Structure formats: structure tokens, C-alpha cells
């Protein structure tokens, strides 16, 4: 029982960042119809920015976190502006190929810039964990969890309460109608991609200090994000949020009670189950076939 509680605590904490990753990807897909293969690179970009500011420049941890996210947003906007804008209206395969090319170029630029040796980021939190009965949680992870929840809530508020969010939702529902109503589709696309990228960078910046940073961390982040959005249904934000937590629990319990080697396989097992029993994902808003 004690062990289960500890596993559950571990899962909740990782689930928060998974949800961030998933929401970012699902937003970009839902609004832009782009399968974003660079998502994981934004994640590792966030983590490397954290390393650069905290470890190389010596900036304050919190300031660095904000900077990493802001730079992630900027990089996302740049990618959208340079690569995707001219492809608006192109079919999904074309944009996907471009994103794969961008992914390769970005990952190897990172490898060139930071070398293949893993970097670790020192966090300012005390090393002794918070102990709650049988469960112990490090302060760093707790911080990660809280920030992730705040970011999820902020994203919800942005989409539900602001003018930008309204325009994004309109674009999601019907791009042509939105354009007719005066929504600047170009700006919405840039904003969406920047926001999604910012969330991925935030996840990377948060988890960087928990784990280590190396150039290919983005790959597994991308794969996890894919699994999460399939679980939740492409384009569904609540789906991505809940999907993130489901994936984290599946992984943690699978690793704890089945076999640690299959930790990463759990997400894909879930995908297969979902495909068999509910092919539209748990929270899909639109028909997926066709």
C-alpha cells in the first residue's frame, strides 16, 4: 500500500508535465492540422535554455524558467513564420515532411551546440524531500507539479476567456467561417504554434532539472506527446490533460508492478487498446476517419 501511494505520487507529478506536452501538440494539430514533429525539440530547447541560463550564465532559477518559456514561444513563432506559413492549405503529409526535416535539423544543431554529453541542472530546492507519511516527494518535483498545474489552468483560461482564445476556438471549429468573421488566420496560426511550443518548452524547462539534458531527450517527449493526444483524441484539450495523467499512471504502475523495461511501452499499449475499443480517442470532438 505504501508502495502504491508512492507510485501514485510519482505519477501525478510526471502527469502534469505530460499534460503540458499533450496540450501543446493537440492545440497545434486541432487548429493548424499540423502533426508537429518538432514538438520534442521545443521540449529539449526549453531544457537546454534552462541549462544555459542557470548553469552557464548563473541566472536565477525562476528567472531562467520564465526566459526558457519565453524563448520557446519565440522559437515556435519563428518556426511557424519561416516554415509553415507558406504551407497553409497544403496537405497534411507535406507539412509533416517539412516538420520532420525541421526536427532533424534542430536536433543536430542542439547536438552540435551542446555536444552529446548529458548536462545536469542544479535546482535551488533543498535536497531533502517533503515526507508525508509513507510518501516522499522532492521539493523540485513538487515545484514542477505546481507550475505545470498553473500553466494548464492558464492555458484553459486563455482559450476560454480571452479574445485570442475565442478566435482560436472559432478557427478550430471552422476555418473558413472564422476567416469570414474577420479572424486573422495567419496570426492565429502563429499564436497557436507559439503557444504550443511554449508549453513544450515549459515542460522541458521544468523536467530538465529533475532529470538530465541531452540532445535526444526530445524524441521520447515527442512520442509521449503523440501517445497522449491519441489517447485523448486529436484536438481535444481536456483529452490531452487527462491523457497525460493516464499515461503517467500507466507508466509508473507498469514499471513498478510489471517490468521497468516496459515503462515506455505502456503508452503504446494504451494506444492499441484505444484503437481497438474506442478508435476516436477518449474525448475526440471530431470524426477521425477521412
Amino acid at each position, binding site marked *: 500500500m505504501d508502495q502504491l501511494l508512492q507510485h501514485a505520487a510519482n505519477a501525478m507529478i510526471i502527469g502534469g508535465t505530460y499534460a503540458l506536452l499533450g496540450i501543446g501538440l493537440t492545440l497545434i494539430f486541432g487548429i493548424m492540422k499540423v502533426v508537429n514533429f518538432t514538438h520534442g525539440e521545443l521540449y529539449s530547447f526549453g531544457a537546454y535554455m534552462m541549462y544555459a541560463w542557470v548553469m552557464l550564465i548563473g541566472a536565477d532559477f525562476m528567472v531562467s524558467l520564465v526566459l526558457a518559456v519565453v524563448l520557446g514561444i519565440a522559437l515556435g513563432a519563428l518556426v511557424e513564420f519561416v516554415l509553415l506559413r507558406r504551407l497553409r492549405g497544403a496537405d497534411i503529409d507535406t507539412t509533416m515532411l517539412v516538420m520532420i526535416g525541421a526536427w532533424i535539423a534542430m536536433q543536430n544543431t542542439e547536438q552540435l551546440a551542446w*555536444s552529446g554529453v548529458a548536462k545536469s541542472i*542544479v535546482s535551488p530546492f533543498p535536497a531533502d524531500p517533503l515526507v508525508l507519511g509513507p510518501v*516522499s516527494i522532492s521539493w523540485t518535483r513538487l515545484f514542477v507539479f505546481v507550475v505545470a498545474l498553473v500553466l494548464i489552468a492558464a492555458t484553459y483560461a486563455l482559450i476560454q476567456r480571452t479574445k485570442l482564445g475565442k478566435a482560436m476556438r472559432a478557427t478550430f471549429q471552422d476555418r473558413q467561417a472564422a476567416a469570414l468573421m474577420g479572424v486573422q488566420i495567419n496570426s492565429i496560426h502563429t499564436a497557436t504554434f507559439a503557444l504550443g511550443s511554449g508549453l513544450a518548452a515549459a515542460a522541458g524547462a521544468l523536467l530538465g532539472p529533475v532529470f538530465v539534458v541531452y540532445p535526444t531527450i526530445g524524441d521520447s517527449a515527442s512520442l509521449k506527446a503523440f501517445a497522449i493526444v491519441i489517447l485523448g483524441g486529436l484536438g481535444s484539450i481536456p483529452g490531452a490533460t487527462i491523457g497525460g495523467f493516464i499515461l503517467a499512471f500507466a507508466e*509508473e504502475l507498469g514499471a*513498478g508492478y510489471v517490468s*521497468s523495461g516496459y515503462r*515506455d511501452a505502456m503508452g503504446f499499449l494504451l494506444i492499441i487498446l484505444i484503437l481497438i475499443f474506442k478508435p476516436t480517442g477518449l474525448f475526440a470532438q471530431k470524426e477521425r476517419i477521412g
Partner: protein
Amino acid sequence: MHIDPRKAALSVLAAGLMAAPAFAQDTIKIGVTQPLTGAFAASGNYVAQGAKIAEDEINAKGGVLGKKIQLVIEDNKSNPTEAVATVEKLIVRDKVPAIMGAWSSTLTLAVMPKVMEYKVPLVVETSSSGKITTAGNPYVFRIAPTSDMEAVAFTPLIDKLNIKKAAFLNTNNDFGIGSAKAYSEALKKKGVEIGVMETMDPKATDFSAQLTSIKASGADTLFVTTAVEQITLVLKQAKELQLDARIITTGGSNSPDQLIAQAGSAADGSYHVVFFPPWFPDVVKNPEAAKSYMTEWKKRGHEPGGMTEGFRGYDGIYTIAEAIKVAGKAEPAAIKDALWKVTVHGVYGDIKFTQQGPKGKESGQNVPSVYLVKIEDGKVVNPEL
């Protein structure tokens, strides 16, 4: 192959098209394959840095057989198939007469059939799996200790550390599995209870699930076998989960100074099996070699934590250079025969090879020293046992 003038002309053309860079043969090339990227990148880079120190020292002293040596270092990306490709390239394209590599046991085991196929000697500087020298590959010469040697050296310490119940967390590759096997057998012989044996993928970064199970098992000592990147994470995460068990890392790729730098207080209280203790250079067999290496390492501004790893590359290159000297020519077969005759006063100790493996196709195995160090209050100390 039959050659006629026209074909020869074509081949010149083709060579020109393919832009083959031709090097003048006034150097002796030595091949090195190391994981410079990927899961073992930190260690691989340290070994390569150590090898370059040896290259420069040897060349500063006039080289070998009147020629300078030239290292051709290839990145095997921590991947066995890539490792084979690098060896293929080193032998077929660069035509090196000897190779040092390939860091991890899995990588070394992967390249062994290739060196046998091309009959080029391989000096193994790091790998610890027993299989390497018992596979019947007469081109393999290992200067690093095997896991069994480590375990034998460790046995007297079992009582002193008062180990009652042990748990294992190791990578699921030849290095980790071989080490866990050797240590668990040694522990069992001493009557120690073996609890959970958890494994991890060499690329994994989150061990909270494994550590939670280990914590629940109630072991008093946890043996961890992997490279320094993962050890850092294991120490940090063990502290986060308040794992009380004493952590002992095996295999010598643990770079204690780097652990102190990166894991901070989480490293306190952990023990580490190393093959070179730069903190007390006077206890080693050849202090002059050790000090010369250490001075140069520091002078070059390399990561201090890498010193316990870099010396492997340093010794490996010295061993090959010495064999070339003894052989009198830079040819694979001659170097292979000469390796049986050399004695190198290296950082590992006095390196010389004894026969191991099936009769008639023995591999060479060196018997180096093994040390156990402890991290206390952010410093490496000689544990008082």
C-alpha cells in the same frame, strides 16, 4: 582481381569522384572507437581525451619507430551496430593496424567478430563482461578488470561493510548484467541475502519506479552498475525517495568527482569501485605515470571528474604504442604477437597480458588493481574499513 588499363583509368576516375582524401603514410595510425554521443557519451569522451594525451606525449618523445602516431577516433554513438560500422571503417578505409575500444561490453562484444574477420588486434580499455575474454577471440587484449575480478577484490569488504541484504539496479546490457551476476554470486557465497534485482534501459532517466520497489524490499545495500550519467540520476532520485540503503557503484565508470559536482549532497555516503584513485595517487603501482597523466589532464582543463575514466584511454594507447615498438613494424599480426610480450608501466598498474579463454585461441587479460572509495561531505575519501 584482374586489372586492365581501362579499368584502372575508370577506378582513378571513380576515386576522384568520391573525393577520397589521401594521407601521406608518414604516420602510424591507431584506431579508436568510443561512444562520443548517446547514452555513454561522457565516459567515451573522457577515454578519448585520455587517449589524446597519450598520443601527444608519445609524439613529443619522438613517436614510435621514428614515426609519429596518429589517432583516428570514431564515434560509435553508444550503439553496437554503429560500433561495428566504425571498426569496419577504421580497418577498411583508414587501414589501422590496431584498434582501441569500444568502451561498453556490449559495444566491444559487437565489434569482436569484425576484428577477428580482419585479423586486427583490439585493446579493450573499459569493458568488464567476462564474455569478452572467454569467447575464444585471439585478437582481444583487455587491460580493464573483469566483473569477476572486481567481485573477488570486493569479497573481503562484504563483512567489513556488514552487508545483510543486497539489492541490484543495473543496466540491462552486458556490463550491467555481468556485473550484477558476479557481485551477487560473491555476496551469496558470503551468505548475504539477495533482494530485488532491478534493471534499467541504458537510456532511461526516471528510476522512481525501480527505486520505490527497492525501498519496499528493505535492502541495506544497493549495488548500482551503469555509467556516470545514470548514476547521478539514481543518487538524486534515491535521495528524493529517502532510500536508506547504502549505495555502491561498480564497474569503475562512476567518476566520483563528477557525482559530487552534479548530484551534490545526494552523493554523500555512497561507495564507488574505481580502478584509479586520483585522490591518492601514491597508492598506485606507478605513481609517476599517474602523476604525469593527472598533470596533463588538469593542464588541458578537462573535467576533473573524468580523470577516473580518461586514464583507460591513456593506458590503452600506451599499450598499443609499446606493442608496435616491440613488433618493430605497424602490422596487425606483428602487433598481435607483440602484445603478448609487452609490459607497460601504466596508470592501471603494470599492464601485461595473461591467457584466458578456450585453448588455442586465448584472449589477453590484464590484472589491474581495484579500489573502493567513499564520498563524504562532498569529498572523496579512502573508507576506513
